[in-house]
C-alpha cells in the first residue's frame, strides 16, 4: 500500500545517520578513519620522496592541459574504453567507486556541516543513485573475479594480493547493502520511502522477514562495524596494491609533459657536463615525472598486448620495464642496467604502441630511449647497428654509400634540383632509403614522376641532403642526431625551404616534430598527403580502373605517431574500391613492421621477425597487393611476404607506385 505523497511529505523525508551508533562509538569511528587516512597519506608521502630522488622537473606546467587531460583520460577514461571485459568491469568499478566515495563524503558534510541538506528529493535521489552505483560496483568486482579465475589474461599478471583486494572491495559493497537493509528494517521505514533504497528494500523484504527489531538493531551494529573496519583497512592498504593508481594515475595524467608522440627529449651538452652521463644509468638520472609515472602503473598489461617485441618473443615487455624500474625505485634506486638487460632495451622498435595504449599516459619509449643513450655513451652497441651509426657520422647515410651518389635514383628522369629550380615551392626530401636502397629508389622515381605529371613545383637537394639523424636518435646516439640536425637545418635555411614533402615517415616525423627543437620550422608533408591533394584537385587522374584485392599497412610513424591515416587510403582509392581490405590492426592501431627504433640494422632469427607476423595478417586478407607508405616498411614487408606461405602471390608496393600504375593504365593506349 503506497501512501499518497505530498510536497510536505517529501520535504521532510530523511534518514538517520548515526542513529544506532552510540556517541563513544562515533568517536572511535572518526579516529579509525582518520588513522587509516593518515597511514595512507604517510605511505603516499614515502612514494613522493622516492620520486624526489630523480632529476628535477619533466612536469607539464600548464594547468589548462592538466584539466583537459584529467577530464579526457581521468573522468572520461578515454584510454580504458574498448570492447573488452576488462574495460567494462573497470567502468563499473570506476563509476561505482567514484560515486560511492563522493556520496559518503557528502553524507559526512551534511551530518557535520552547518547546513543539513540531506532530505527531501535530494535525499531520495541520493539513496537511489547510491544503490545503483553500489550494484555497479559489486558487479564490477564479480566480473573482475570471474576474469581472474577463468579468463586469465597473462599480460595482466596474477597474485594473491589481487584476490585480497577484490574480495575486500566486494565485501565492502555487500556489507554496505546489508547495513542499509538492516537500518530500513529496524527503523521501520515506510515502503514508499524504502523503495528509493531499492537494494536494501529488496534484501529487507525477502531475507529479513520476521526478524524482530532488537535483533535487527544488533545485527545492524555488528555489520556497520564490519563495514567501517573494511573501509579503514582498505584505505590504509591502497598504496600496497593495484589500487594505488587511483592516486598516482591522475597525478601522472596531469603531470606528463605535453609534446608530440614522435618527439624525443633533447639532451644538452650542459646536462652531460653536469651529470657526466649521456642518458640514464642510475635510477636517479630519470626525471622526477618519469619516476612518478612508474608508480602510476596498475599493471593492466595493455602495453604488453600491443608490443611487437613481446609478440615475437623478444626479451622486452613494456610493462615489465616499468614494473622492474619501480621495484628498483622501491629498493632505493641504483644501476638500471642491473635490472633491465641491454637486449631488452635494444629490442624496442619505438613504434609507440605501448604509449598509445597506456591509460595513465606512461612514456615507455622515453624511459627506454633514456637508458639506450647511456648504453651508447658506454660503448655497449656493436655489430651492424653500430656500423650504421658510424656511417651516418662519416658518410651521412646509414648505408655507408658515397653521399655524392644521392641522385642515382633520378637517372634519366630530369628531376629538378635546388640548383636548376631555385624557386621551388616544395622541397622533395628523398631520404637515405629512397636514395640508396634500389627497391626504395623505385618509390622515389614513382613519386617524382607523379609530381612532374601533376606539375608540382618541386626540387631535390641532391648531395646536400644528409640523413635526418632519426635512426641515430632512436638508437640513442643523441649527439650524432644533433650534428645531422644542425647541418640539415643550415642547408634548409640556406636554400630558403618553407615546404617539405618526403616519402619517408621517419624523415617526416623528425623534420616536422624534432627539428623545431633546434630552430628548424617547416611545413612538412608526407608524400601521401600531397598526392591526395593532387588527386582531390584533379591534377592527377583519379580513375580507379580494375584492381586486384589490395590492403594497406599503415606505417607507425605516419599513422600512430602523426595521425595520418586518410591520405594513404585516398591515394590508393580505398573508399571507392570494393577490392580494398583492411587488416585487423589498421589505422592508428597499426602493427609495426619491425624496422623502427634502429631495429632495421639488428639481426633477428626468423621466429622473432615482426614482419613475418604482419605478413601473415596481410596475406590472410586475401589481398594481392600490400601497399605501404614507408621505405622501411617496404623493405621489411617484402622480406616478410616473400618468406611466408601464400606470399608468392602478393606484391608489396608503395602507395605512390600503386597510384602511378593506375595513372599509366588509365591512360588510353
Amino acid at each position, binding site marked *: 500500500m503506497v501512501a499518497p505523497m505530498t510536497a510536505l511529505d517529501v520535504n521532510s523525508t530523511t534518514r538517520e545517520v548515526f542513529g544506532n551508533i552510540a556517541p563513544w562509538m562515533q568517536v572511535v569511528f572518526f579516529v579509525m578513519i582518520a588513522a587509516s587516512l593518515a597511514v595512507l597519506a604517510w605511505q603516499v608521502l614515502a612514494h613522493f620522496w622516492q620520486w624526489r630522488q630523480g632529476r628535477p622537473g619533466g612536469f607539464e606546467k600548464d594547468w589548462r592541459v592538466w584539466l583537459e587531460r584529467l577530464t579526457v583520460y581521468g573522468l572520461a577514461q578515454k584510454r580504458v574504453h574498448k570492447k573488452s571485459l576488462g574495460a567494462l568491469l573497470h567502468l563499473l568499478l570506476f563509476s561505482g567507486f567514484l560515486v560511492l566515495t563522493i556520496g559518503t563524503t557528502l553524507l559526512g558534510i551534511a551530518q557535520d556541516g552547518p547546513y543539513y541538506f540531506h532530505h527531501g528529493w535530494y535525499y531520495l535521489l541520493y539513496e537511489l543513485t547510491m544503490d545503483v552505483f553500489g550494484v555497479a560496483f559489486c558487479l564490477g568486482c564479480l566480473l573482475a573475479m570471474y576474469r581472474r579465475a577463468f579468463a586469465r589474461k597473462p599480460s595482466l599478471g596474477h597474485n594473491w594480493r589481487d584476490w585480497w583486494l577484490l574480495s575486500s572491495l566486494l565485501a565492502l559493497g555487500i556489507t554496505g547493502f546489508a547495513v542499509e537493509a538492516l537500518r530500513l528494517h529496524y527503523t521501520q521505514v515506510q515502503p514508499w520511502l524504502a523503495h528509493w533504497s531499492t537494494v536494501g528494500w529488496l534484501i529487507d523484504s525477502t531475507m529479513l522477514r520476521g526478524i524482530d527489531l532488537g535483533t535487527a538493531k544488533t545485527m545492524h551494529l555488528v555489520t556497520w562495524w564490519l563495514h567501517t573496519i573494511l573501509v579503514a583497512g582498505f584505505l590504509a592498504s591502497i598504496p600496497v596494491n593495484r589500487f594505488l593508481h587511483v592516486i598516482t594515475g591522475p597525478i601522472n595524467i596531469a603531470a606528463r609533459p605535453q609534446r608530440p608522440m614522435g618527439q624525443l627529449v633533447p639532451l644538452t651538452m650542459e646536462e652531460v657536463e653536469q651529470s657526466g652521463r649521456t642518458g640514464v644509468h642510475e635510477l636517479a638520472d630519470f626525471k622526477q615525472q618519469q619516476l612518478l609515472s612508474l608508480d602510476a602503473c596498475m599493471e593492466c598489461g595493455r602495453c604488453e598486448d600491443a608490443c611487437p617485441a613481446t609478440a615475437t618473443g623478444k626479451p622486452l615487455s613494456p610493462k615489465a620495464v616499468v614494473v622492474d624500474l619501480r621495484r628498483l625505485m622501491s629498493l632505493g634506486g641504483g644501476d638500471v642496467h642491473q635490472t633491465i638487460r641491454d637486449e631488452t632495451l635494444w629490442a624496442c622498435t619505438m613504434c609507440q604502441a605501448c604509449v598509445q595504449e597506456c591509460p595513465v599516459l606512461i612514456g615507455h619509449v622515453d624511459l627506454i630511449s633514456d637508458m639506450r643513450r647511456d648504453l651508447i655513451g658506454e*660503448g655497449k*652497441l*656493436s*655489430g*651492424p647497428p*653500430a*656500423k650504421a*651509426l*658510424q656511417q651516418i*657520422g662519416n658518410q651521412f647515410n646509414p*648505408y*655507408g*654509400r658515397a653521399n655524392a651518389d644521392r641522385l642515382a635514383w633520378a637517372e634519366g628522369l630530369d628531376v629538378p634540383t635546388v640548383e636548376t629550380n631555385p624557386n621551388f615551392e616544395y622541397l622533395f626530401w628523398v631520404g637515405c*632509403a629512397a636514395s*640508396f*636502397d*634500389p*627497391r*626504395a*629508389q*623505385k618509390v622515389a622515381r614513382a613519386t617524382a614522376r607523379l609530381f612532374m605529371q601533376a606539375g608540382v613545383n618541386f626540387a631535390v637537394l641532391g648531395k646536400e641532403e644528409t640523413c635526418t639523424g632519426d635512426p641515430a636518435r632512436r638508437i640513442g646516439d643523441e649527439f650524432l642526431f644533433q650534428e645531422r640536425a644542425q647541418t640539415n637545418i643550415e642547408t634548409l635555411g640556406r636554400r630558403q625551404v618553407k615546404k617539405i614533402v618526403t616519402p619517408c615517415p621517419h624523415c617526416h616525423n623528425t623534420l616536422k616534430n624534432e627539428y623545431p627543437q633546434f630552430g628548424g620550422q617547416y611545413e612538412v608533408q608526407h608524400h601521401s598527403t600531397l598526392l591526395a591533394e593532387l588527386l582531390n584537385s584533379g591534377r592527377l587522374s583519379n580513375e580507379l580502373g580494375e584492381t586486384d584485392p589490395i590492403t594497406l599497412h599503415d606505417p607507425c610513424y605516419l599513422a600512430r605517431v602523426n595521425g595520418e591515416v586518410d591520405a594513404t587510403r585516398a591515394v590508393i582509392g580505398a573508399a571507392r574500391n570494393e577490392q580494398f581490405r583492411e587488416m585487423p590492426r589498421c589505422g592508428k592501431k597499426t602493427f609495426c613492421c619491425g624496422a623502427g627504433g634502429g631495429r632495421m*640494422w639488428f*639481426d633477428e*632469427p*626468423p621466429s622473432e621477425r615482426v614482419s613475418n607476423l604482419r605478413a601473415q595478417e596481410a596475406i590472410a586478407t586475401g589481398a594481392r597487393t600490400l601497399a605501404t607508405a614507408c621505405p622501411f616498411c617496404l*623493405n621489411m614487408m*617484402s*622480406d616478410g611476404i*616473400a*618468406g611466408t606461405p601464400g606470399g608468392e602471390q602478393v606484391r608489396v608496393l608503395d602507395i605512390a607506385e600503386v597510384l602511378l600504375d593506375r595513372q599509366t593504365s588509365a591512360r588510353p593506349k
Partner: protein
Amino acid sequence: MAETLVLIELDRQQVKRPSLHAITLARQLGGAYALLILGHGLDEVAASLISYGASAVIVADDSALAEPLADRYAAVIAEAIRQQGAKTLLGSSSTFSKDILPRVAALLDAPMLTDVLALEKSDGATTYRRPTNAGSMLATVQLEGDRRVLTARATAFEAPAADAAPCAIQQLKFDAGGLPNGMQFISREERVSDRPDLTEARVVVSGGRPLKDSEHFERLVGGLADALGGAVGATRAAVDAGMAPNDYQVGQTGKVVAPELYIAIGISGAIQHLAGIKDSRIIVAINKDPDAPIFEMATYGLVGDLHQIVPQLIESIRKG
C-alpha cells in the same frame, strides 16, 4: 712461478699459430711468463714450444681434456693459475677464448678484457687499448684488482721468435676425476672444402630463396662456384631456410665481400644483402623478376629461370 700464463690453442695436437701472437703481448707486459696447453697426447706439441722464452711450458694432459669442453677447460686453467700464482691469463681473440675464458674469469673473480690491441705503461699503471662501438673508436681501459684475464687480437701483435734457450716442460697436477662434466662431447663436424675463403675469393657465387633447398643450392650455386674456382655465399633468407650454413651469409649481418666478380643467383637485392657486396667490381644478377632491385645495382643482368640458366652456364664454362 710465472707472472703471466699464456694459453696456447691447439687443434688436435697442432698449435694454432695465431694464438702464439699473445706471447708478444706477454713480453710487453714484462715479468716471467709460462705457456699453458691443454689436451691429450701433448708430448710433441709441448716440445715444439720450449724455445719461446717462457719460464716453462705447463701441460695439462688427460683423456678428459681431449676435446675443448668449456666447463672442464675453465676449471683446469683456473687451477693452473692458482698453482702458478699468476696475475695475468693471456689468450688470443678467438671463438675458443670466447667460449672458455669468461668462465675462467668468473672462477677467479677477475676482470676480463677482450680484443686487446696495445698496452701502455705509465707511472707504474698499465692501461689497455681495445676497440669499441663496432671498431669505430678505441677505448683505453684500466683494470682493477690484482688478477686479470685478457685476450689479444692476433693481428695487433707480431708473431714471436722461437730463438730462446729451451725451457722445462711441467705436467700440471689436477684431479681429472673431479672435473665438471656438465658438457659432453658428442661429435665434430667439419666442412672439408677446397673452395677459397669467402672474404678473400676473387669470384663469389651467391644464392637466395628461390634455390628452394640445400640440394639445389649446392648443385647450382656450388656447381657454378666450382666451375669458376670461386667461393659460395648466400642471402639471409637462404641461410634461414637451411639451404646454406650460417658462415655463408653475405650482407649487413654476415660477411662483407669485395670480389672481382659477384654472381647473384635468385637474389632480389634487399639493401641488407647489398650492404655486403657493394664494393664488388662486377655484379652479375640472375633473376626471373625483371623488376628485382638487384638489377639496379648489377653490372650485368640476366632475366630468366635460374633452374634453366645456371646449369647451362656451368656446362658452357666447363666446356670452354
